[in-house]
């Protein structure tokens, strides 16, 4: 399971690093032009850490490693937010040995709650939550409707994309973009975008695993 989880996390890291410029340019419009730099620095460090992890490290251990690394390397608000998300995910993953649909829902729920606890934001404040939460809800719905893991993830991706679009229509009331007041209108949130990218990477990863299986 360790190499599987490492590969999943690497897929996430690669996707973020590939989109460094996009994320930074989105942040340039309504923030301090560093979200891509922050996230890429964080996930480069994560990649190094998880590749070097002992082969017996379990899912929870790898998620914790990811969280700790993001906390100490990202630098922006997204560091403690995603860092806390992965730490909570690690706690929820404790004892879990496979990443099936139910396990993923539980882990995701914990991660989402971590972001809310840390950032004290809720949906509609133009943050990563506007992608992350509807995506999570869509995932749970799809799972209930007996869709497969990959199908459920695909539905969640769609919801995250819509969440990104939604962030264009609202004013930021949390984070740096809130300094802009009404001027944040019309721009998509960088954090919502990075959340979508991570999810899209995971979806593709599970999709490819299925094909390979």
């Amino acid at each position, binding site marked *: 399971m360790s190499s599987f989880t490492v590969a999943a996390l690497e897929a996430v890291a690669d996707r973020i690093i590939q989109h460094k410029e996009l994320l930074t340019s989105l942040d340039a419009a309504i923030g301090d032009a560093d979200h891509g730099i922050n996230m890429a620095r964080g996930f480069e460090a994560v990649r190094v850490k998880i590749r070097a992890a002992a082969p017996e490290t379990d899912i929870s251990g790898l998620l914790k490693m990811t969280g700790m690394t993001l906390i100490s*390397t990202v*630098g922006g608000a997204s560091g403690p937010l995603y860092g806390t998300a992965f730490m909570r995910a690690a706690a929820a993953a404790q004892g879990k040995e496979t990443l099936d649909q139910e396990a993923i829902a539980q882990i995701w729920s914990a991660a989402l709650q971590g972001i809310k606890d840390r950032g004290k934001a809720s949906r509609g404040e133009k943050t990563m939550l506007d992608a992350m939460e509807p995506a999570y809800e869509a995932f749970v719905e799809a799972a209930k409707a007996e869709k497969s893991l990959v199908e459920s993830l695909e539905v969640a991706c769609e919801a995250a994309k819509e969440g990104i679009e939604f962030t264009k229509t609202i004013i930021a009331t949390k984070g740096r973009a809130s300094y802009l007041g009404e001027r944040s209108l019309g721009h998509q949130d960088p954090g919502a975008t990075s959340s979508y990218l991570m999810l899209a990477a995971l979806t593709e990863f599970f999709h490819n695993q299925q094909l390979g299986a």
Partner: protein
Amino acid sequence: MVGIVIVSHSAKVAEGIRELAQQMAKPEQKIIAAGGMADGSIGTDAMRVSEAIEEAMTEAGVVVMVDLGSAVLSTDTALEILDESLRARVRIADAPILEGTIGAVVEASVGSSLEQVLATAEGAREMRKCL
């Protein structure tokens, strides 16, 4: 004496404020700068913050000064990493970082309590510079 930690996205800012505050401080007072990332870039690092809190810790506790909202996120995260026994003696000041730090350091220098130092830091908001 209450210890003070200065958390800024900029190492220069944190260190510069520490130097200014040190001028008004007792020599034995603990004022720790936790600015920027380990690699020198702009940002806050919860690990550095938690180390700084440990370094600044005294019987009387620690007040943490922050520059921007995301420094609060890092400091909250730092508190989660910290020992629970220490955590109870830490307060984050919702105060202007430079003005609040000077006020907090002066207040702490006379042996005031954690809550008094916090109140003085936060009171710096009302400080008038132009007369």
